[in-house]
């Protein structure tokens, strides 16, 4: 073994996360092929292993395979983010107990740091955590271990591709690391995008080993410090730390595809207003305020029209007040509307976010403290009521939802783990 450092980093991710969540809480789906559709029931974004075995491809538009899926008796589900979000929260909290630091990287993956025991062998730790997560949540995880994040990512890929790995691979404990790095093509290395990958290929660099051994100056000239860091990590140095407290979001976006495309200004405004209310609510729940509000709309990528437009308004004072934001969004929606086009998607973005706790009112646009307090009290009350009595108990008149633009979620499973009215039933 050539392990020098006592610290290791593991990338832990859940296999077929969305499908596993569904199969774990619904006995009817156990051991059956299951596919999950994207928002608006567009295309296939997740598959259970049973569906994989049927050679159903990721990203396939649902309408193209509807009949085939039916014939093969595949269960088709809309994405149920209240379920996946809850299971993700459970997963991350459980993982936290078995590592030193954790950085939640996405809904179903996390980087964790862990010290090696005296014998340097982390396989027992990984096996333990793997069986524990399966027992507790019914979810199978893959554990890739390395000296740093880039290598942990590579190890995770290897764990998935090597049959005998049983979902665990420690790249730092192999005797012939070069052979394993050769198996990873450059476009699969974490941080290498399509353009970089094309450039590397044109230079004859095909895999992770060749990238590691590439002339340093050449990579710095093209990719700068990022390229250098990447190469150093491949050499075994630790450049990218575990980010325990990730910076708060830079922007909040709420956008949806329309069930059927819309052409009327009224419909567009209404949709944007609904999104604006949701976005304001999100901001308040995170103590954030925005001083740059943007709206956008676009036509379908599949249609022959190709139109997209956005408009924004910068504010002197950051705000989280739904009333003020709605006024702006209604005005902005006129700016992006165009009667010639059928819009298939629209959304709002709250940009330039600041923490409302440290907010300073600008002197020029000073709103009296009393007004400010009044509006924030009102917003807080509305948020509370909506939380208490389910969403949208109280909302703004502008959002009376017509059916045409709400999202299609025709195959939505229940909020089995988060809503007492929807918990599973034991029948026998």
């Amino acid at each position: 073994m050539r392990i020098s450092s006592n610290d290791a980093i593991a990338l832990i991710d859940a296999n077929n996360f969305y499908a596993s969540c569904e199969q774990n809480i619904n006995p009817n789906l156990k051991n059956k092929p299951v596919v999950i559709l994207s928002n608006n029931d567009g295309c296939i974004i997740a598959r259970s292993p049973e569906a994989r075995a049927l050679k159903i491809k990721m990203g396939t538009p649902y309408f193209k395979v509807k009949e085939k899926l039916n014939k093969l008796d595949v269960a088709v589900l809309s994405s149920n983010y209240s379920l996946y979000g809850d299971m993700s929260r459970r997963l991350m909290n459980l993982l936290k107990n078995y590592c030193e630091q954790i950085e939640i990287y996405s809904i179903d993956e996390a980087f964790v740091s862990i010290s090696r025991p005296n014998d340097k062998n982390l396989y027992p730790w990984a096996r333990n955590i793997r069986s524990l997560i399966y027992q507790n949540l019914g979810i199978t995880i893959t554990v890739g271990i390395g000296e740093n994040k880039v290598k942990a990512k590579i190890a995770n890929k290897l764990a998935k591709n090597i049959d005998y790995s049983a979902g665990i691979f420690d790249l730092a404990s192999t005797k012939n690391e070069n052979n394993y790095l050769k198996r990873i093509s450059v476009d699969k290395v974490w941080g290498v995008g399509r353009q970089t990958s094309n450039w590397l290929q044109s230079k004859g660099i095909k895999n992770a080993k060749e990238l590691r051994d590439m002339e340093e100056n050449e990579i710095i000239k093209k990719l700068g410090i990022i390229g250098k860091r990447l190469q150093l990590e491949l050499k075994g140095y630790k450049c990218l730390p575990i980010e325990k407290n990730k910076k708060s979001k830079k922007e909040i976006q709420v956008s949806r595809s329309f069930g059927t495309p819309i052409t009327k200004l009224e419909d567009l405004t209404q949709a944007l207003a609904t999104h604006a209310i949701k976005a304001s609510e999100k901001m308040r729940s995170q103590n954030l305020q925005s001083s740059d509000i943007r709206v956008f709309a676009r036509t379908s990528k599949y249609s022959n029209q190709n139109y997209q437009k956005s408009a924004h308004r910068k504010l002197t004072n950051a705000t989280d007040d739904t009333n003020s934001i709605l006024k702006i969004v209604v005005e902005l929606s006129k700016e992006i509307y165009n009667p010639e086009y059928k819009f298939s998607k629209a959304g709002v973005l709250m940009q330039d976010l600041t923490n409302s706790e440290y907010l300073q009112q600008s002197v020029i646009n000073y709103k009296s403290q009393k007004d400010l307090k009044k509006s924030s009290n009102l917003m807080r009350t509305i948020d509370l009521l909506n939380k208490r009595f389910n969403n949208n108990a109280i909302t703004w008149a502008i959002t009376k939802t017509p059916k045409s633009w709400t999202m299609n979620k025709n195959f939505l499973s229940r909020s089995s783990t988060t809503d007492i009215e929807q918990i599973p039933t034991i029948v026998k």
Partner: protein
Amino acid sequence: MDSFDSTTKRFRIPLLNDSVSAGFPSPADDHMEENIDLNEHLISNPFSTFFLRVKGESMINAGIKDKDLIIVDKSLIAKPGDIVIAMIDGEFTIKRLSIKNDELYLKAENHNYPDFSFKNHIDVQIWGVVIYSIHSYL
């Protein structure tokens, strides 16, 4: 509690409201405690605990009735004597994990319901251990 566990934020309804300031301050103000939170007392492994609803009378002799709310802890390893939730043939089933002649089986706590033998069944999973059932008398 855990910093990024959002569900532990819940509404606590205080017994007294400190904005009522007329008259003398209540002598109990200094002794206000948080209210009793059943989650805290009933659930020791919140991240592996799930709720289910019973339909039917198959466990009536164990005191579990129709419409009862069942709290299941998936982190516990089932042992004989435990009431468990199993996934059998595409359904959730509630039974007592029992042992007879050195063989495990699932016992229905109602004579009108059949026990379940693991023999001849491949597709059975003990899903979790029941830690509480909650019955409403209203």
